[in-house]
């Protein structure tokens, strides 16, 4: 566990970090960035909070463990389904039918914003699963209902 300064600042800032990663993902077709950097930015608050509060303290939180389990079991499969669904939409539909704003607006770019969104959520879920698995799944961790 780090000092109270780091804990307070990380507790204040983690929502803004998630918001910034979300902004990078959503504006992936307009500005530099996209699914992969935005997904990594959305995972970084989890790493920061774990570093600031320590593994032992995080392990006591029931909600965190349940969140990790939800991420592992359901979310990744669902998100990959959403991603495949958007790919199917994008390849079936012509580029002229989907999100036809003038270039530079948010609703432009055809299927690219949807693909960025699905890919960003997938990257977020995958990196969160890898990190939380390495934190939680050690010797002595019990799966309790």
């Amino acid at each position, binding site marked *: 566990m780090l000092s109270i300064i780091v804990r307070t600042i990380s507790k204040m800032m983690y929502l803004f970090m998630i918001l910034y990663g979300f902004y990078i993902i959503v504006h992936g077709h307009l500005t530099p*960035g*996209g699914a992969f950097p935005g997904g990594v930015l959305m995972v970084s608050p989890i790493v920061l909070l774990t570093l600031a509060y320590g593994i032992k303290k995080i392990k006591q939180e029931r909600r965190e463990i349940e969140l990790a389990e939800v991420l592992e079991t359901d979310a990744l499969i669902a998100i990959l389904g959403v991603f495949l669904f958007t790919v199917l939409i994008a390849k079936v539909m012509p580029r002229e039918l989907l*999100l036809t704003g003038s270039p530079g607006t948010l609703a432009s*770019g055809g299927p690219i914003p949807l693909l960025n969104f699905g890919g960003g959520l997938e990257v977020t879920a995958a990196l969160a699963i*890898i990190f939380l*698995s390495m934190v939680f799944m050690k010797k002595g961790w019990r799966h309790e209902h």
Partner: protein
Amino acid sequence: MSIKPAHLLIAILWILLMVAAVAMPAFGSFPDRAPTMKSVAVYYLENGMAQTGALNIVSTIVWDYRGYDTLGEVTVLFTAAIGVSAILRKVGEA
């Protein structure tokens, strides 16, 4: 120490890599191409925004022109996450 076939293979591979490295264009020079036969990169730069409507040319190439490649990339990440979760899990636990 006797020369094994693996050493011979490594030597041949090293020679091939050295030949390829010498044959590369000089650092910082753009390879010459005739203007009539445009490369695919020039095609992306000229037609990317008109064909997709997205301003970010990197997103255009990654998600549109080479969308299936990116789908495979994301699938590799998915497999990595599943693998880590499966290996670190204790045996017999859900």
